[in-house]
């Protein structure tokens, strides 16, 4: 069973997979210059809650509701970078930020989604998506207005089907809500 659906949608959905997304992470004035820091991600996945995306879209497209209240309007959309499996395994997914290599037995667990920090998405040749791994420690937002520009939306490749989208959402929420306990001693 493929986790992907190619069903088009006018709005973003949780689990949408995008390719070649460049974001400005910081800009600062240094002397007489403006330095603009950019990050380009080969792939990323939308993680904003599905119902929030739907309500945002519906409310923006209903002049009456939009005029009455902008309570449901999203200021940003949450994305998680997705790294090609080979780079992830080699620890080279982020330039200038070497990470540990993942051995074969760990990689098997990653591919079965048995390590809660990572989420594996299988290759989709038709959409030119390789085997991907999301690292739940990495995420970023894009202003909603920017994400809906045609130039940005052109980065869309495919989307996760409902069940697989919810699986991703659940695992991401679980990882973010984990509680780091101090080491315990036996009494």
């Amino acid at each position, binding site marked *: 069973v493929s986790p992907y659906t190619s069903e088009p949608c006018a709005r973003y959905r949780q689990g949408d997979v995008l390719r070649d997304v460049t974001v400005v992470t910081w800009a600062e004035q240094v002397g007489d210059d403006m330095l603009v820091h950019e990050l*380009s991600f080969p792939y990323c996945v939308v993680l904003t809650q599905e119902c929030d995306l739907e309500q945002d879209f519906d409310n923006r497209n209903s002049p009456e509701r939009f005029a009455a209240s902008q309570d449901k309007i999203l200021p940003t959309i949450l994305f998680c970078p997705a790294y090609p499996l080979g780079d992830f395994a080699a620890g080279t997914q982020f330039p200038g930020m070497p990470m540990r290599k993942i051995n074969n037995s760990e990689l098997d667990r990653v591919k079965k989604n048995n390590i809660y920090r990572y989420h594996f998405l299988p290759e989709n040749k038709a959409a030119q998506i390789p085997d991907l791994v999301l690292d739940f420690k990495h995420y970023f937002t894009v202003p909603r207005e920017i994400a809906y520009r045609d130039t940005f939306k052109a980065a869309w490749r495919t989307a996760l089907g409902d069940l697989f989208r919810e699986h991703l959402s659940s695992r991401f929420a679980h990882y973010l809500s984990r509680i780091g306990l101090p080491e315990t001693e036996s009494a």
Partner: protein
Amino acid sequence: MSSYLKDRKLSDYKLATDTTRKASSATLLESTINSTKDGISRAGEAYKKSRVKTVVKRYSLK
């Protein structure tokens, strides 16, 4: 950051290092923020080779 950039006069910006784009235009900054590529297919298995890239662009404010 967005409001900071908005508060500046965009027409004052000049590109200092990237000579492939036109200097001193609001379009330049917009394209920087939104510089996603189109959905053109890649030959063979090139789509598996994509990597994260980091760039720092320098724009002269003079």
